[in-house]
């Protein structure tokens, strides 16, 4: 319909534009032309010799490997042409062009007149003239394939089940991609290459050798300097014969020995053809102002291009010209650069692989064990070429320097290794919108961007708006990166990021001195004096923790400032029930204790009895109003499996029984846990002691860990973690007695209590302060604070009261109330108007 209308309204100004070729470049050109309003000027007619719409040839190897579906490759389905008023002759090969008559003839006899003609005929797989290519007829022998089209790909996939060993002739990019596909499909794969190293078009020799080693590790067998002379087998492929007389038995052969521009048609039409169809900077064929050529078939300033980016640049320039948008647009050639994966290995290549003269500077880095190779070619202070193999993290930065010709830093290593920052942030930039950033709350990159666009321009507001980062918090650095990407100039520094709690505009140090100066002993007093009376609920628990640390016994404990766990001394579960975890010092218990636990679990029909990671027993699924009775009957103190405090000290069996033990880790663990039980801290503390460096209790990845070493000594580790974040602790010091372990444990705890941010775990705190600084403060006593720290932690130890005592004396009659009933029902009724 649309086409008919167009023809009816085609005025004398409308011209017929015929495009020969419906590949990635031909179709892209038409898209670009229409996007520039070219549909008003031209009736567009396309010829494509494949029966489908336009597809992404780059993904063919993905189809072969089974990682992509056919649908993934379609760029423009057939409907697209119809919808856009483009006449596509799909599956019609052009047999001749008559430039006198301005006619194009298809192999079905169709004639299309043109006013403007564009060659986008692309290229074909080059099949070298080997002996035994065909069987009886002229067709390629059974089991012998080129790798160029969807059809080739389909036939290869069909053939694979009949094959066990495949040889790929050609170790260029396409050949290796074919090899990957066949390897994924379970074949033994050989790559036979004429040259002395792989991918010589993109890589220098060292990189090529490194790539070979990596491929061989994957199971690909690489044969270099090997000239194939013959395909063996009468009817179907049985092997390859080489010029040196050797043979390779195989039952499938893929020829990927390069591509050749499709120029026959242009040659027949009398156009100037060298290696490709020669074009000027206007992309026009010299001698005929109506005829243009773009893509792999075109030769511009002596150069043929095979990568997609420069070809799309040509498509764009020609569209600019022909649509009249930029009538004098010219193509001045492309600086070739590409970033891709070869068999899953990152590769980025740009410009020159080798220096051009003796003044050129070459910077290389090679790490064969990890398959990494990096090379820069620098001329006159500018980047002229680069190869990054195995680690393309620096590629975005190098590409910028290459494309824009920016001045390089004097320290070239910065270019190769400025990766820690650059890599992770480009990683985020490259992620699709659907990528999940927060794995706790399932927040995607797209959702974060939408929230930023909706005005959430600080980390805090973004996290609040999306829930990202509010689970385990491990994704916050990535959330911050998305924020920076999406917010750009509107990114705002969040002043409250530096506050100890969001609702009181003071840093921890400022807050501590204000609290001390004014003698503020309760959370409500802090709100009244330091926050204008605003009782920000998000700030209450953090203030409570701090005030308890500052005031100890003198703290005015307002229970509403506590999180529910700390009000009822149990850990709330998803259904509103709680857990009961009695203290089992150092994980050492008795039969009698176990019997009591079993009795209580049975009596209260506890839904789950669970051994915890901290070597204790967890009674899970308990109603709030059952808690006090259970505690009383257990007759054991609280294990603090709920609060921000010292939690537990895990132990291994140690020298008492273990045949490897060099230190008494159980006794030490029990001593630590008895002394420091229930001490509140900015975030939870998990400890462990290990009786030997085998570290069975994982003490090196605890907030504080003590590891026995030969000679009666203990290494004290701080700042370890093995949860959402994994970090090996740093050695604070090495001591020679249990007492000294207890001393340094307490000293570190008190310093952490005074200087950590609320909820800042030691694995963030220790690196923030620095282990050197901590050693100088806590071991060398450089600032003379140790005596005070020791006294303050002793005061906290002395002030400790087992909270489960509240089973006997609750602080409020409703402290453990589950649900209350009204005292009077239906005391009065009223009629309400409903809007």
């Amino acid at each position, binding site marked *: 319909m649309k086409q008919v209308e167009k023809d009816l309204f085609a005025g004398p100004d409308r011209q017929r534009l015929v495009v020969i070729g419906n590949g990635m470049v031909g179709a892209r050109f038409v898209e670009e032309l229409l996007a520039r309003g070219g549909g008003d000027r031209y009736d567009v007619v396309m010829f494509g010799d494949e029966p489908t719409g336009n597809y992404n040839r780059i993904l063919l190897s993905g189809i072969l490997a089974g990682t992509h579906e056919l649908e993934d490759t379609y760029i423009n389905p057939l409907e697209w042409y119809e919808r856009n008023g483009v006449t596509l002759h799909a599956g019609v090969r052009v047999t001749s062009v008559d430039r006198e008559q301005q006619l194009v003839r298809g192999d079905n006899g169709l004639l299309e007149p043109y006013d403007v003609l564009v060659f986008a005929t692309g290229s074909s797989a080059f099949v070298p003239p080997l002996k035994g290519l065909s069987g009886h007829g002229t067709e390629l022998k059974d089991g012998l394939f080129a790798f160029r089209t969807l059809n080739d790909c389909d036939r290869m996939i069909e053939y694979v089940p009949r094959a066990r060993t495949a040889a790929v002739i050609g170790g260029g990019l396409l050949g290796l991609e074919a090899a990957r596909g066949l390897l994924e499909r379970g074949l033994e794969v050989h790559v036979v290459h004429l040259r002395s190293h792989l991918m010589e078009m993109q890589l220098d020799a060292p990189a090529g050798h490194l790539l070979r080693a990596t491929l061989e590790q994957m199971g690909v067998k690489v044969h270099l300097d090997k000239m194939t002379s013959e395909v063996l087998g009468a009817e179907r492929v049985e092997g390859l014969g080489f010029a040196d007389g050797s043979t390779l038995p195989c039952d499938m052969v893929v020829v990927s020995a390069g591509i050749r521009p499709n120029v026959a048609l242009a040659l027949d039409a009398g156009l100037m053809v060298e290696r490709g169809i020669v074009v000027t900077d206007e992309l026009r064929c010299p001698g005929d102002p109506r005829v243009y050529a773009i893509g792999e078939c075109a030769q511009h300033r002596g150069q043929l291009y095979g990568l997609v980016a420069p070809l799309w640049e040509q498509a764009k320039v020609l569209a600019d010209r022909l649509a009249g948008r930029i009538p004098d647009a010219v193509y001045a050639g492309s600086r070739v650069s590409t970033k891709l994966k070869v068999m899953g290995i990152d590769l980025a290549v740009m410009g020159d692989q080798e220096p051009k003269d003796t003044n050129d500077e070459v910077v290389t880095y090679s790490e064969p064990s990890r398959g990494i190779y990096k090379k820069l070619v620098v001329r006159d202070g500018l980047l002229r070429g680069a190869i990054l193999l195995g680690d393309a993290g620096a590629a975005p930065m190098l590409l910028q320097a290459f494309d824009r010709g920016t001045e390089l830093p004097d320290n070239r290593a910065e270019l190769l290794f400025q990766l820690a920052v650059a890599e992770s942030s480009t990683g985020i930039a490259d992620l699709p919108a659907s990528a999940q950033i927060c794995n706790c*709350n399932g927040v995607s990159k797209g959702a974060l961007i939408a929230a930023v666009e909706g005005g959430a321009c600080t980390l805090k*507001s973004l996290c*609040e*708006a999306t*829930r990202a980062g*509010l689970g385990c918090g491990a994704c916050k650095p990535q959330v911050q990166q998305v924020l920076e990407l999406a917010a750009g100039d509107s990114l705002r520094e969040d002043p409250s990021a530096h506050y100890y709690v969001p609702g009181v505009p003071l840093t921890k140090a400022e807050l501590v001195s204000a609290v001390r100066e004014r003698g503020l002993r309760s959370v*409500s007093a802090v709100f009244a004096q330091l926050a204008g009376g*605003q*009782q*920000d*609920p*998000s*700030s*209450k*628990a953090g203030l409570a923790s701090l005030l308890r640390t500052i005031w100890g016994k003198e703290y005015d404990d*307002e*229970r*509403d*400032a*506590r*999180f*529910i766990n700390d*009000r009822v001394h149990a850990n*709330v579960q*998803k*259904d*509103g029930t709680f857990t009961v975890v009695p203290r089992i010092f150092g994980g050492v218990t008795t039969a009698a204790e176990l019997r009591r636990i079993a009795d209580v679990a049975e009596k209260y029909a506890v839904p789950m009895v669970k051994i915890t990671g901290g070597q204790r027993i967890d009674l899970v699924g308990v109603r709030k109003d059952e808690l006090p009775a259970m505690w009383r009957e257990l007759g054991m103190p609280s294990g603090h499996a709920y609060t921000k405090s010292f939690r537990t000290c895990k132990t291994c069996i140690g020298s008492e029984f273990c045949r490897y033990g060099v230190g008494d880790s159980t006794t030490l663990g029990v001593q630590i846990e008895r002394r420091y039980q229930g001490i509140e801290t900015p975030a939870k503390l998990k400890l462990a002691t290990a009786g030997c460096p085998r570290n069975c209790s994982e003490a090196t990845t605890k907030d504080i860990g003590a590891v026995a070493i030969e000679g009666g000594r203990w290494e004290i580790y701080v700042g370890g973690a093995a949860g959402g974040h994994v970090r090996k602790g740093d050695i604070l010091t090495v001591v020679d007695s249990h007492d000294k372990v207890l001393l340094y444990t307490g000293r570190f705890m008190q310093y952490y209590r005074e200087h950590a941010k609320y909820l800042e775990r030691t694995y963030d705190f220790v690196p923030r302060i620095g282990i050197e600084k901590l050693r100088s403060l806590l071991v060398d006593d450089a600032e003379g604070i140790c005596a005070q720290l020791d006294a303050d932690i002793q005061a906290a130890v002395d002030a400790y009261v087992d909270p489960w005592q509240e089973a006997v004396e609750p602080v*409020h*009659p*409703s*402290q453990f*109330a*589950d*649900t*209350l*009933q*009204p*005292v*009077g*029902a*239906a*005391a*009065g*009724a*009223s*009629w*309400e*108007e*409903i*809007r």
Partner: protein
Amino acid sequence: MSAAALRRESVQFDLGSIDRIPPGEGQTFLVDGREIAVFRSREDEVWATQARCPHKAGLLADGIVGDGQVICPLHSYKFDLGSGAPVRNECASLRTYRTEITTDRRVLVWIGGRETWGADA
């Protein structure tokens, strides 16, 4: 029938002394077969909302209260107690109930009749 003519009975319940709820905290009540959460500020203001959060049925009475807001104990979603509206999050609004404190410090709550969601209040 005009909207203004629509009327429904709401029933008043006496929850007893305000001191049944610790200052600055919440408490779950079972009123006429329905769970509700009742909150008391440190200044003795009182609010009532549905008992469980719309997100994962967290018991709101166990949340931390302040500035006329409650933070759900399960996943820290914040709600305005007066209106029931979520505060800087996408959770659904809470149903709220009319409350009153008598001169002898008893808490009254009205169930049925006009219950509001979100911006109504």
